[in-house]
């Protein structure tokens, strides 16, 4: 991996000033920034090749289609998919999970069971909630005391039978808990369940091929791996993807259409109705190529180091409570401050030029499991520096002092 100054030059957005201070962007669990090469690829596509894919015979359509399908291969290669698997482009992780969940509705019967964990992002909770409500299946929510999944309870549920689907996050967007996917997928699949991993937070951390993790489905979003927003992926083993009833019907996903019926096209087209976000897919491929060129393992290691450093520095602040003590943490950590509402803290920290996330993090049950309703989150990416973490810690301390003065009075 090149040195940090060189890397930061690749990200034009990072060099700006906000409120007359250098921007310190530590909200990468929400969205990562795009390097120059991705921005250029996006622009280039629109300037030179833009045309709808799989629809025309003219030269632009051919170029566009070729780039789109090449992007699919790039994603497949990045994930380490293997021959028996396929990449479906979606609008993001939420879309991917909805596609999988509702596509599986026809496979569930009353009395069947679906397992998720309490640390899921709402995107990996609500579709399963609804699926269970409409199918009569039971939703089992795995407790994660102190941010660590309860594996005894998990194996207990699996051994009781009728678990059809297990849907777990790879890395929690709240606590940064790294779920032991290999350990959890094996018994799930032995018990006959399909295993879906929400990789939105995990893909920058885990470099092993997705097949090694034992997933039937794996989902992620472009905007969390240096790509643009509005593009995501549902990767799946072909036999698992074949199970999915298409959630959306329309152009591009059919073979023969008659007035009263249609026959569906094969994978991947069958699950990509309508004009896909091909420019997003093409830019996403450029983002993954960029990550590969940096050396994925080094990217992941650097992010781990930054997070460990942040955890150490924040732990030293009296009255600051980090949520959870997972065995392995990656990507993000969340915390509360005594006497300071997270909204107040984030407002003031923002004026120091530091972008943290505050609020519920789309994970209300996860927050509730820690007895809080909002928290602040710090999530570094490899392009952040240790000095930036120091600045963030300083700003948090100053913010805390500013509020303490007033909370004692009221």
């Amino acid at each position: 991996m090149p040195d940090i100054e060189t890397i930061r030059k690749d990200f034009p957005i990072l060099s700006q000033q906000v409120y007359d201070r250098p921007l310190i962007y530590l909200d990468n669990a929400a969205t990562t920034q795009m390097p120059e090469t991705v921005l250029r690829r996006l622009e280039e596509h629109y300037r030179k090749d833009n045309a709808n894919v799989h629809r025309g015979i003219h030269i632009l359509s051919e170029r566009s289609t070729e780039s789109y399908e090449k992007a699919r291969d790039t994603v497949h290669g990045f994930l380490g998919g293997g021959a028996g698997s396929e990449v479906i482009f979606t609008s993001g992780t939420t879309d991917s999970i909805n596609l999988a969940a509702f596509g599986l509705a026809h496979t569930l019967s009353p009395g069947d069971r679906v397992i998720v964990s309490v640390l899921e992002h709402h995107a990996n909770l609500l579709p399963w909630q609804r699926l269970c409500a409409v199918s009569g299946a039971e939703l089992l929510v795995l407790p994660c005391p102190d941010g660590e999944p309860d594996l005894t309870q998990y194996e207990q549920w699996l051994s009781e039978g009728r678990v059809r689907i297990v849907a777990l996050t790879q890395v929690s967007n709240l606590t940064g808990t790294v779920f032991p996917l290999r350990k959890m997928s094996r018994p799930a699949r032995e018990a006959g369940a399909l295993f879906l991993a929400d990789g939105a937070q995990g893909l920058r951390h885990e470099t092993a091929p997705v097949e090694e993790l034992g997933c039937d489905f794996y989902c992620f979003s472009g905007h969390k791996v240096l790509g643009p927003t509005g593009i995501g992926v549902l990767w799946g083993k072909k036999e698992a993807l074949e199970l999915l009833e298409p959630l959306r019907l329309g152009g591009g996903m059919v073979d023969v259409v008659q007035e009263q019926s249609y026959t569906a096209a094969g994978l991947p087209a069958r699950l990509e109705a309508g004009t896909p976000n091909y420019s997003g897919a093409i830019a996403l491929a450029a983002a993954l190529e960029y990550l590969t060129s940096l050396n994925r393992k080094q990217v992941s290691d650097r992010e781990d180091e930054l997070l460990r450093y942040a955890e150490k520095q924040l732990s030293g602040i009296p009255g600051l409570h980090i949520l959870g003590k997972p065995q392995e943490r990656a990507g993000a950590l969340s915390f509360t401050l005594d006497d300071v509402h997270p909204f107040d803290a984030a407002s003031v920290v923002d004026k120091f030029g530091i972008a943290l996330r505050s609020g519920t993090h789309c994970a209300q049950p996860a927050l509730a499991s820690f007895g809080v309703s909002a928290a602040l989150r710090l999530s570094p990416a490899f392009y952040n520096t240790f000095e930036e973490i120091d600045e963030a810690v300083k700003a948090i301390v100053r913010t805390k002092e500013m509020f303490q003065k007033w909370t004692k009075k009221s």
Partner: protein
Amino acid sequence: MDEKELSIAEYEQTFIDDLNELEDWFLQYEYLLQISADLPRIPSERRKEENRVQGCQSGVWLEMAYTDGRIRVTADSEALIIRGILSIAVDLLDGRTPEEIVSYSPRYISETNIKKQISTDRFNGLSSVVDTVKQFAAGAIRRED
């Protein structure tokens, strides 16, 4: 001069001037925190779903009454910056007649940095606090008629 001798709009101008004289955000926050300290708390048992202002992520509660020809207003929030902003609304509107309130158009948000503070969709509800009080005041006038 007693502040109540000022019209709502005149009194509001003092807040706008105070805030806009403070150059940076930190001083403006200090100002809001300072005035928030004078705003009485609504005890937790009276913070109910019925009087919760919708659309505020940090939780805002509003209590209103109409007695002796005056509208009584108090408000509270879990977040102190929000309490500071609410405190301006309460100072301006509490103890006024319903007629004064219905003819008032708020400026303290749009003419200060508060508009930036609450511009995100998480705080939609905060700008509706004044509207809610105005509706209550209009109801009070209708009942009198």
